[in-house]
Every structure is written in C-alpha cells, then in structure tokens.
C-alpha cells in the first residue's frame, strides 16, 4: 500500500475532509517503501526493509488548530482521526502566528522525481550492487565499507479551501569508503539519484579504491592558508553538516530580521540586496530541473518555484514562513529542497591542471558551527587529501582541521567547475584561495 496513486490518495483525502466539521481542515498522506544494505570489511554487515503510509489531519476553528494522525484507513479510523483533531482544535489557545489555510495553488509540472526502477529494488538487487564494489576491493586487496539505501513513495495534500497536491518521488544513495589493509590510505566516493538505473556502484568503488591507493604515505605539511580545490562531496554532504548547506540554511528572513544571523544589519534590518560574495556566485533553486527532481510543493502547500537566492554575489531572496512574510511585508518564499550553484565547464581534472600549488580535498568531516555571527565552522579533511603542484597531484598530505566561514570562502573564489548532483543539489567543485587550515590530524 505504500505508494498510492493520485486518485487513490485523493479519494482517501476527500473522504477525510467529508468527515470534517471544522472551519478549515487540511489532510495529508505520506507513504514510503524502502530498504538498505551496509557493508564493512568487504562483507555485508546489516540490512533491512520497511514500508508505511500515514495520514495527518489538521482541523481549525478560528485561530485554534489541532492535528491528529493515524495509519489505518478504514472509515471508522479516519472518522476518529478527524474527530480527535477537532477536539484538540476546540481546546487550543489562539495562535498569535495563525495564518489561514491556503486555497488552490498552481504547481509547476511534476518533474521526473519518481522512478519505477527505484521502486522495484529488492534485496537481491541491493546485495548484487554492493557485491560489485566488494569484488573490486577483493581483487585489489583493499577493504571497503559501503552503504546503499533506496526509497520510493508519495505525498498528497488536500484541504477545505480547495488546495490539492500530489507527487511521487524516489531516491537511491550509495557511498563507499575504501581503505588500504595497513590503514595508511583511504578513499571515498558517493552519488545519489532519483533513478537507480543511473547508479554505478562499480565506478564509484573504483574511484574510492584509486584514492585509497594514492593516499598512502601522506606527508605532513604545515597548517596555514592554502589554495584548495574542494570536490562537490567536500562542499555538500549527505551524512554530516556541510559548508554550502550551512550557508543555504542561514538564508532565513526571520532570524536575519531579528538580529541573530550573519545577514543581520547593525541597527536592525537585514542584508538582502547586498553583495556579500564573489560576483561569480549564483545559487538558485528550480523544482523543474530533472537532475535533482523533488517535491514541487512545500510542507504548508506553497508552490516551489524557480528562485534565485544569490545572484552574482548579491543576496536576492530569503525564505520565510507565511506568518513572518505577512508581518514583515516581504515576499512569501518557502525554503527550497535542492539548489543549484552555477558553475563553469571545467571538470575537476581541468581544475587540477590549472593549479600551480594547492590542495585537493575529497571530503570534509565533523563540520560544526563555531560562531553563528560569522558563520564560522570547523571540521576536517578526510579520505583523500592531496598536494597539487604544477597542475598535477604530487603526493598525499595528512589531513587538516579547518576553521572557515562559507562567506569568506565564497569571497576567495579562484575557479568554479562543472556542477554535479550531490545530496539532491547541483554542486560544482570550487577552487578557493586562502582557505584556513589550523592544525594537522594523524587520522587516515
């Protein structure tokens, strides 16, 4: 039952709304089926599977609201769920941030967010995919640890003001870390797609294996300010905090207006419209982009539309709740799902060729905020850090700890490469001067 069609989902939601006696009522259905397999030491360690569908009902009387949920779909359960939401709403205090439910919305045409091939994944497929990677490492006498996860599902919304939304989506993610048996080398690769047929676990494992072999006998070089080439996986991670995601997560209008954001201005107000980054920095979101297809509607039913967040270094838009948009008299823009950083045509290899002296960074790790005022973050390089000289990788270097702000980083741009999908976003490799490494790590 996990993936209902649009008509099946809307039929349930229509029935739910028919049970409502509230001033306003909104019902949403979410379903998902998925599985995963994890390997380590070139063998499978754990795996599992799950599926579920759940309904949430929000009922409102005036400025009072209540929510109830269930995951059984007989009439009695649905009726009870609606009644429970109404009982809660009748007793609720009026919300000072109440906003009426949205009426009908226009959503952009659903992109290719769902793949039947991903939805059809079974335990045999998962085992076969990870086995391909393990075989490569067996042959090269390397040790791999990998994770494959897939999911397919839908989300549907309907409310008493006439709003209707429905979309299916699917996704598959694979990541692999390959280590040399002596523990002196480590490499990493990862990819994610809506359509599992694009996934090539062998190619990714080969990349990680190559990096592991190359990263043996790393040399220590002094921490300090270096020109770095950050691979996309070093800029956006799906397993940890990340520098570019931190920047995107800070583009919130309310915290900027309230004075607790790097976008807050002295004396009040925010820095929207100001040039804060290198003029080559342009970041936007576009729900119609087929490479990073995701839901075209937000959790509160607002449409996701193509939105420019930073254009030629200037902050163009901030996302906000509907309440704050109304209160502050600013555009009402939901937080985006994936986003796209515009890049050039250079591949990573081209960028390395064009570098006289620098450091190539495969991945960053344990990235944590140090100062929200300056958006300063700390973290470390990991799984493949190399010294570049005269356009070539000369030798591996020991890992570094960095203390850097994405704001400073995006003012020190040397070059931008060709974007690739990473964690549901399109992210280019970046060449950055004066990136601040503060200490060395012996970790491999």
């Amino acid at each position, binding site marked *: 039952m996990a993936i209902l069609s649009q008509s099946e989902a809307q039929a349930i939601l229509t029935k739910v709304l028919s049970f409502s006696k509230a001033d306003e009522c909104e019902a949403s259905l979410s379903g998902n089926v998925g599985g995963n397999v994890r390997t380590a*030491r070139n063998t499978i360690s754990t795996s599992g599977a799950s599926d579920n569908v759940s309904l949430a009902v929000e009922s409102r009387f005036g400025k009072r609201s209540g929510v109830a949920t269930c*995951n059984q779909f007989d009439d009695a359960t649905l009726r009870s769920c609606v009644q429970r939401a109404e009982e809660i709403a009748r007793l609720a205090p009026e919300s000072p941030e109440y906003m009426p439910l949205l009426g009908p919305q226009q959503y952009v045409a659903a992109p290719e967010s769902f793949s039947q091939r991903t939805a059809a994944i079974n335990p045999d497929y998962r085992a076969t995919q990870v086995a391909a990677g393990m075989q490569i490492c067996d042959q090269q006498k390397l*040790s791999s640890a990998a994770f494959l996860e897939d999911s397919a599902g839908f989300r549907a919304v309907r409310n008493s003001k006439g709003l209707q939304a429905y979309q299916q989506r699917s996704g598959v993610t694979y990541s692999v870390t390959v280590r040399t048996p002596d523990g002196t080398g480590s490499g990493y690769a990862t990819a994610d797609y809506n359509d599992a047929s694009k996934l090539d676990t062998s190619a990714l494992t080969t990349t990680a294996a190559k990096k592991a072999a190359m990263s043996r006998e790393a040399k220590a070089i002094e921490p300090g300010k270096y020109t770095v080439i950050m691979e996309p996986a070093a800029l956006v991670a799906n397993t940890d905090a990340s520098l570019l995601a931190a920047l995107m997560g800070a583009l919130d209008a309310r915290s900027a207006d309230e004075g607790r954001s*790097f976008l807050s201005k002295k004396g009040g107000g925010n820095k929207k419209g100001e040039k804060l980054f290198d003029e080559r920095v342009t970041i936007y979101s576009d729900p119609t982009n087929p490479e990073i297809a995701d839901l075209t509607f937000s959790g509160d039913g607002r449409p996701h539309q193509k939105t420019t967040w930073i254009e030629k270094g200037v902050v163009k838009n901030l996302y906000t709740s509907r309440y704050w948009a109304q209160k502050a008299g600013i555009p009402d823009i939901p937080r985006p799902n994936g986003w796209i950083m515009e890049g050039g045509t250079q591949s990573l290899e081209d960028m390395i060729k064009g570098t006289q002296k620098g450091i190539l960074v495969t991945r960053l790790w344990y990235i944590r905020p140090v100062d929200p005022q300056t958006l300063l973050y700390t973290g470390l390089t990991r799984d493949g850090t190399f010294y570049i000289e005269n356009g070539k990788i000369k030798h591996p270097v020991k890992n570094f700890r960095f203390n850097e702000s994405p704001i400073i980083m995006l003012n020190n741009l040397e070059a931008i490469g060709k974007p690739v999908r990473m964690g549901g976003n399109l992210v280019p490799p970046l060449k950055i001067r004066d990136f601040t490494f503060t200490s060395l790590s012996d970790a491999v």
Partner: protein
Amino acid sequence: MKRRDFVGLTGLAAGSLLLPSIPGFGSGLLVSPERLLEPGLDVALKKRLADVALNAAKSAGATYADVRIGRYLNQGIFTREKQVQNIASSESQGVGVRVIANGTWGFASTNQITDEGIAKAAQLAVAIAKANSKVQKEPVKLVPQKGYGTVSWKTPITQNAFEVPIAQKVDLLMETNAKALAGGASFVNSALFQVNEQKYFASTDGSYIDQDIHRIWPTFTVTAIDRASGKFRSRPSMSASMGLGYEYLTPSAKEKIAGPAGSDVIGYKQRYDILEDVTNATKQVKQKLTAKSVTPGKYDLVLDPHHLGLTIHESVGHPLELDRVLGYEANYAGTSFADLQWKAKNIPYGSKAVNIVADKLQPGSLGAVGYDDEGVKTKRWDLIKEGKLVDYQKIRDQAHIVGQNESDGCCYAQSWQDVQFQRMPNVSLKPGKAKLSVDDMVKGIDKGIYIAGNGSFSIDQQRYNFQFGGIVFYAIEKGKITGMLEDVAYQANTQEFWNSCAASCDESDYRLVGFFNDGKGQPSQSSAVSHGSATTRFNGVNVINTARKIG
C-alpha cells in the same frame, strides 16, 4: 479557554507536522497526549507474539532469532518568549525481528502487531539474510548467551513525566522565559523533552525481557543582541538530559555545585533548577557581549563536568567502540586510532590520573538499562585504568574477535523499526581520590581558563585531532578567576590531551552530563548516553581565538 485547559487536555498545535525534525522523536506518529498514558500491550500477549516471531523465523530457516516488541512514547513542549510554539506527543509501536540464516544477519520490522504481520516480518528477515548470504564471506559468530527466562526492569523514577499535567510543564517553561525576558534577554526559547521506551525482548536463547525506560531533557537558549553593534550571543541551559522522571525538575540545594569563586557558574547533579539556571544564563549572556577576546596560546584548562562530558564522549567513548575499531563504521562515523595493535603495545592513553569506566547501571544516567537489545544483562567495566587502555565496548558478534566469551551488553536500536548494533554505554572519568575542591584547583593555576558547558565540538574520524568550545569561559590569572572571555576553543590530540590530565576534584564535585541524540550507523540511529566526571585540570593545552571578520 484558558491556556491551562488547553495544554492539560490537548497537546498539538499548528506546526506539529515538523515533528520529524525534532530530535529524539524518531518516526512516531503524533497522538493526543492522553493516549500516552494508556497502558501498552499486556506482557502475556507480548510473550505470545514474541513466540510467533521466533517460531516463524525458525520455521523459515533461522538458526538464531530475536524479536523486539516496542512502544515508544515521546513528548516535546516548545516555547519562545511569551508563547507556546508547539506541544508534540508521539507514539510508535511495532515489532522488529532479527535473524541469522545461512550465517548472515537479516532484519525486518512491521507496525502490524498481529500474528500474521509478525510472522511475515520474520519471514522477510530470513529472506533478506538468505539473499545477502550469497555475497557474505564471514559467517556471523555469536558468543554464547544464557536465557534469563521471564524478567523485567524499570528506570527507577519517582515521578513519570508523562503523568505530570502538560499545563504544569508549560507553566514552568513560560516562567523560565519570563525570567529571561525580565532579566533583559532579547530572545528566549525553552523546551522539555520526555521519552518512554517500553521494550519487550525475546530470543531463541530463552529470554523474555520486559523493560520500561524513561528519559527527560529540559533545555533553553537565551539570546542577547546589541543592536548598535549588530553583535549577538547565546547561552544555552546547563541542564543535563537524564535517565530520570519529572523529579529531575525539583530543585534541591544539596544537588547544586558552585563553580569557582568569581565564575557565577552553578552545576547540577540529580536535580535541576531551571529557573535559577535561566537567571544565571541571562546575566552571563549579557556579559558575553562585552567579554574580552582570548589571546591564543597554551593554557592550563579547568573543565567543568558539563563540558568535560563531551570531551570524554568524543575522545574516549567513541574510539573504544569495538565495531569502530574493527572498521564497521569506516564509511560514516570512522575508525579508531585505538586499534587492537595499539592496545597490544600498551601505549599510554593518558596520565595515571585517568581512570575511565563504562557503566550501563549508573543511576540517573541515560544509558542505564537492565538488559541490552540482544538480551544481555548489563554491567560496569573498566576501559582505562591509570592511563592504560584495558578494554573496549563489545556486543555478541564481536567479542570472539578479541578473544572474549561474553558481550558487554551495549547493543541498542533507536526503535522497533531499526536494527540493533553496538552503541556507547555511559562512559565516565572517575573522580580523584584525594579531597580537592574546584577553588583549590583554580588556586594552583597561574595562567588558565575555566570552561563550563559544551559548545562547538569536532573530532576527526579516528579520534585524534579535536577542537572543542564551551558555553562560558573565565580567565584564571595567578590563582583567581579574573573575568569572562570569548572566542575560545582548544585544539588537542586525544592522547596528548589525556596525558596532560593533572587532577580531578573529588567525588563531591562529580556529576553527569547527557546527550539525547548521539548519531552512528547507516541508516543513522541516535542513542542517549551520559558521561560523569568531576571538574578536572589539563595542563598546557593549545587555545585558539575563533573570532573572524566577514566584512
């Protein structure tokens, strides 16, 4: 309708659909709060259902099986300034079945708590194990575990937080916010998290274990803004999340410990005074706006237990997880410098003042349970004795690798939906044996910094290089606290840092800090764990200044 009537009878408001982003709430469904007081399944029924799972697994070809029938209750109350933002109550019930078939693990879970649903999950777990066994190289090997028959365990609480009227909890948070605003805070957020795990475990070893586990976490963040300069600073609460009931929020003078003279820091043991802490926080956050920026260099650090707990967690707790040592976390959380070869060489982990113990029984701790999630009775054991690494943290399928024949009982899954694996027990630094107060400790320091509370923290994937911040920092000059500092973080190598450990205050200063959401594994799961210590001195640690300019 008065707020008290609302919060006493309901519990949900607009915005509740954001629940998945609330830490510790897992995948539970939102429910009305009164539902959280309804009893779960009868124990006799759970035993019968458990047998359905075990028999179905064996019939399908499993050589070992365990089943966890779980009911997970959560409640979170969220406020800011003068308003309740959200009260979210959730419940999640279901069954997870883990099997070994063809020498390979398989796991499946279901929310269909019926004979048919459970049997189907057991059969799916066996099917997954068999599919994976085609590419499996090393068969799973479990150390023997005796069955305990029918047993039970409950967190020794005196007041179930779910039974306290929501109105009472909201009133406390609103009073907390009012104290902050009255004290001049620009903003204040406060929250109260409560967790109850009702877990039933059975295995083909012959155990039927019923457990009722409680946790609580009151917290707030006070923010002060200087509009003229555009500067803002925050000060979160100094509470610890605890394995206690609502009694944790009953202030008690004997459970308070003052920081060094001149610091204004107050620490809490098994009882927490949120109103006192927020009053202190409001005072301190304003001081932070004008505190002196630290001069980088080597300092002797005096670390309070609320801060040091996180250091212990990252630099001792995680590196001594045997699954990490063996490489099972290599793709995500990393491996460990403290590998088996390193231990065999008997390399000092720290100075002789460093005695660190793992403990799944410690009263009030988040990790205290009677039995772990693979039916092993819990215990206390040494990890580091007088600076030497003596043991790791292990579960049943790892113990044989280090030549041991029993698990340490630290297997855990965050819910019935997730497979159990090795998680950190409570890991704590024993206090010093000699009488030593924090004032006496400070008196002996010429140039140092006293750090309280855990702030920004980061450590590499093998747990060597770390950088930790804190919540409040005070300069120590010639044996006295001389004022507040800011922009402080210290960087160290784990081994060097623990070797610089000079002394810990005595038992009277000992207390716990807890973490509700420690992430590990793929798919990532969270677990809750506590760390105890007394205030401890570390000599000659490298302190950096974290202030930057962004134009």
